[in-house]
């Protein structure tokens, strides 16, 4: 593998060549680590199952009786399971680094690849790729479940609820955005786990950061504070990507909300990366 890299990168400076080679080797090493233990595959499968199951259950629980106006964003409803699936994604991402700390593997990893940021970058790239793939299946399955179930629950095209379809722009944006949301949750979790190291504490911090904002939003009635929370809390802001109705009254635009989550993930990864370089493993 490294031979091919060197051949292809002849024109680059020595440092650049080393960087690219280092990253590819790191990716290869991380892929081997992820591939050869059973945990990640099970967690990715669990993400898909949990997402689709909770989405289906939520969709099946809602009914729109005839004669009433139902102010329901059916696309968002059919993607409810993302709120459960993200917890498993968080576990996967946390274990990608905390698992190495708990077994002492991190010292071997860093001895083999002293460029620590490359190690973290490789983990981030691989995690994002895997979660994007699993998330695409999960979101697709959720939308499909909505497409099958919703007409039977009173949400028919005749009443202003067209069949869920990825061909529709807002639905595609919500579904694709949910996949990106899961990937960003993975990166945020990886960053926090690099900071905290201990897996239990890292998972606690991630899930607290995510799940507390909708709970607190249910209590805070001060419009200034609830606006701030809706705009800047990672889960509340990030999940606005799922909104397809009432876009004008959203506290933050769908892509802007996803951008807020991306900023959280970037900040966590950056802080994690810096501490990884500075601290002893």
């Amino acid at each position: 593998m490294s031979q091919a890299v060197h051949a292809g990168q002849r024109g680059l400076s020595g440092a650049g060549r080393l960087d690219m080679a280092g990253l590819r080797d790191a990716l290869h090493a991380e892929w081997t680590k992820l591939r050869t233990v059973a945990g990640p595959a099970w967690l990715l499968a669990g993400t898909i199952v949990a997402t689709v199951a909770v989405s289906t259950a939520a969709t099946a629980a809602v009914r729109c009786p005839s004669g009433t106006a139902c102010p329901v964003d059916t696309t968002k409803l059919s993607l409810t399971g993302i709120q459960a699936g993200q917890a498993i994604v968080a576990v996967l991402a946390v274990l990608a680094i905390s698992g190495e700390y708990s077994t002492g593997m991190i010292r071997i990893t860093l001895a083999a690849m002293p460029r620590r940021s490359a190690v973290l970058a490789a983990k981030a790239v691989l995690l994002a790729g895997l979660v994007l793939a699993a998330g695409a299946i999960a979101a697709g399955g959720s939308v499909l479940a909505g497409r099958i179930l919703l007409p039977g629950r009173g949400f028919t095209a005749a009443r202003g609820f067209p069949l869920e379809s990825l061909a529709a722009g807002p639905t595609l944006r919500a579904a694709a955005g949910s996949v990106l949301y899961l990937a960003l949750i993975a990166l945020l979790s990886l960053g926090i786990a690099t900071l905290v190291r201990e897996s239990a504490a890292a998972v606690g911090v991630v899930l607290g950061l995510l799940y507390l904002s909708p709970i607190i939003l249910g209590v805070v009635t001060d419009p200034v504070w609830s606006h701030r929370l809706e705009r800047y809390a990672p889960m509340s802001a990030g999940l606005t990507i799922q909104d397809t109705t009432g876009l004008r009254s959203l506290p933050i635009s769908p892509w802007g909300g996803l951008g807020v989550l991306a900023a959280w993930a970037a900040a966590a990864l950056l802080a994690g990366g810096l501490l990884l370089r500075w601290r002893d493993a």
Partner: protein
Amino acid sequence: MTAGTVTPYQPDQQTGRDGFAQLLRAEWTKFRTVRGWVIGTVVAVLVMAGLGLFAAGASSSSCQSASGASGGPVRSGGACGEITPPVGPGGEPVTDSFYFVRQPLAGNGGITVRITSLTGLLPPSNPAAQGPIDTHPGLVPWAKAGILISGGSTPGSAYAAMMVTADHGVRLQDDYTSDIAGLPGAVSAASPRWLRLIRSGDTITGYDSADGTHWTLVGTVHLAGLPSTVQAGMFAASPAYQAITENFGGGESGMVAPSQDTAVFDDVSRSGAWPDGTWTGDYVDAAEGSGVGGYHQVSGRFMVTGSGDIAPVVPGQAGDIGTTVTQHLIGTFAGLIAVIVVATMFITAEYRRGLIRVTLTASPRRGRVLAAKAIVIGSVAFVAGLAAAAAAVIFSAQLAHARGSYVYPVPWPTELRMVVGTAALIAAAAVLAIALGSMLRRSAAAVTLVIVVIVLPYILGAASVLPVGAADWLLRITPAAAFAVQQAAPQYAQLTAIYSPNAGFYPLAPWAGFAVLCGYAALALGLAVVLLRRRDA
């Protein structure tokens, strides 16, 4: 972490109950000597109390945006500090707003009436529609009219009333919260209702009859401290009309607008000493309701029209301006997550470090080891939860009062139940966490599982698009049912309101909900003991 585990090996030392006390001491020593766990517990207390203060502080400006449409404690034009609903004899906030045709009754006596009709007016079903007819005939389910004996003329006074209602037959209600059913069926000229109230000291007895000769005892109520002269007479009240649409998002109230009703009384007879001899009609607490009301008297026949309600006020309804003690305990979720992390690590760290082999060698009866761990972590979690919940409730209420925002008063036994229940909830969650940690041996998986089964059902139930029915089921069968211990106000059958989880109402009774979590924790602990015995450590 390793200190103290050697004490059971002193051969001359008397070990009580097969060394269980020593086991407890060993586990306690492990807990208190790991700095991270102690810090985690302290963090749990701080975030729990801190978030409660935040919730109290970040909700106080809402009283400026009050709209005076509902049965909630909203007064139009009042400044923040003035918005306080009257408080009933039981300490609960009440609505006490109705039209009252009354005169003083000195000492013991009674009043008997016949009611031949109860009609009313409802607000327009579509407020935006333009048209000359803006109201239409009809009654809200709890439109009520009848006879009432009241201890005073100020809102919140003790009272007892016999009434006919639109959809719920004859009722005897007293002191805002109590409700006893009498004759069923609606009142009409063909099927009139006779009502009677007899006062004797602090005791008031209600009777009803369908023919004026055969009387049935509906109930006897005691109004403590009733003055010797009371106000007695006829009243009419009609609660606000609520168009509660399908409750997406855990409870959305549609339009809320005042309604009114009119009752026709005849055959009014009195016993005892009525010194004035003439009737006076006035609106009790007119500022609260729509103020619609009046009466006509034509030769012993009275038509009384009223609006408003005589009922408790429950939080979480349209136009709500106050905060509840439940909201001050919102930090429970954050504290819970921190405690779950610590409790899980209390067992998984043993596996990670291999200490579990030392532990199980020192005390080979494995079930007892897990029991000791559960007792230690459960006690720590209970004490931490108790401190945090008490601090959150006390300081948040002070902050809210200092900022002039209204806090729904709760009777002290309820407040005590909420604080102790919250601590018990956190303790049970810690036991669930240690059991799952012992089964899974992986801290990340165990922490996530416990958080997801306790916190996620609450989020999906209270803060998502699920309708009330599905949300209720989630909060009945998942460990999140335990949050019922934080319910501040009871659900009143005689009050039309949105009793949904996000308004602070849970489908199970407080301790029944807690029992659901305990059931899960006990089941998990049992399975964990079985697995710990069977598997190699």
